[in-house]
């Protein structure tokens, strides 16, 4: 079983159309380069203690984000045949780790 966090465009950057930050939420501008994006991704992985999982960083063209309609967040499970086994709904409301967990358990037990 392989997990990847795929870091994509910030959802609520300070300078974005839907800004948040302050009051407990992190403050960050929308990264303008791949290098900046990599830095924010690394901070995110470390601060949220996600580092047991490896991360990948979507490039500035947002190509992978687009292909998976992944923004602001989303979960997928891909089987060994390369086909999707689980496709979560878009976040925030559709971001349901428990569903992914169940899908993984079901998939692994079938094999």
């Amino acid at each position, binding site marked *: 079983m392989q997990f990847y966090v795929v870091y994509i465009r910030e959802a609520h950057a*300070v300078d974005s159309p839907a800004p948040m930050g302050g*009051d407990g939420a*992190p*403050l960050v501008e929308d990264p303008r380069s791949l290098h900046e994006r990599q830095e*924010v991704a690394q901070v995110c992985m470390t601060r949220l*203690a*996600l580092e047991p*999982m490896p991360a990948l960083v979507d490039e500035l063209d947002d190509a992978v984000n687009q292909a998976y309609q992944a923004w602001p967040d989303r979960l*997928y499970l891909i089987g060994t045949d390369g086909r*999707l086994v689980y496709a979560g709904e878009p976040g925030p409301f559709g971001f349901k780790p428990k569903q992914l967990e169940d899908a993984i358990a079901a998939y692994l037990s079938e094999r």
Partner: protein
Amino acid sequence: MRSRFGWLALWITLAAGCRTTPDETPSGTQVATDSNEPAPFPVWETGKNRSADEPTPESRFEFLTRLYDADEDGRVTAEEYGREPETFARMDRDEDGVLTAEDFAEGQPLLSPSQRNERRRRLAAELFAKSFQQDDDLELGLEEVEASFRDYDADGDGAIVVREFARHFATLNIEPPRGAPPGFNPFPLFRAEIARGDDQLTMENVRAYFVSQDKDGDGRLVPARRAEAPKVGELAPDFTLSPPKGGDPVTLSSFRGDRPVALIFGSYT
């Protein structure tokens, strides 16, 4: 407020059986650099993840002044900001050419006057999209859009305010985002406009938008289809991406025939 990955972090922590406390979270995450490297891209914590030696801006404006207010006069000019003019304009809500605390104050309209025009275009686009959803064929004529407009205009005053949009949204049997809580208001960000009652869309705005979109001038619109996400059973779109610290790129399809892959998409905010 939990960050976007907050619940996931909790889930991972529990699943891994290695509960960490914020104190144990490694500090100094601003990626160690030697003097040759560019300054780290600032990411500042305001919540429990903040370490003791970290800058402590509590608001978006404070964050921006620390980054850009070179002469420390409590204002950020376009020259000081130095990034894209559009982004500066978006943040300069009162359009006085300088970023001040007022631009970020609670209750400040989310949009400047020129952005409000842009927003009217977006409201019109929303109206068109809803009209399209209620339409049987794949085209939209101006008369259908005008009919939708009258549907929305609950008080019949010839102007739709955002509030009417929101109310109509609830009665239309048009699905809110899946999983949204009952009574979900799709326009929470526009409360200031709603309170002031000044964010209006008139039939004139709608007609103007229609004309602007009807590029071939045939009086019919074919609304653009939203891109669709890949579905269960379909081949996962392949990609090759690199990890944040550099290192070897990873190609999704390289796991084919080997092991399943879970992808967790998200960002820090």
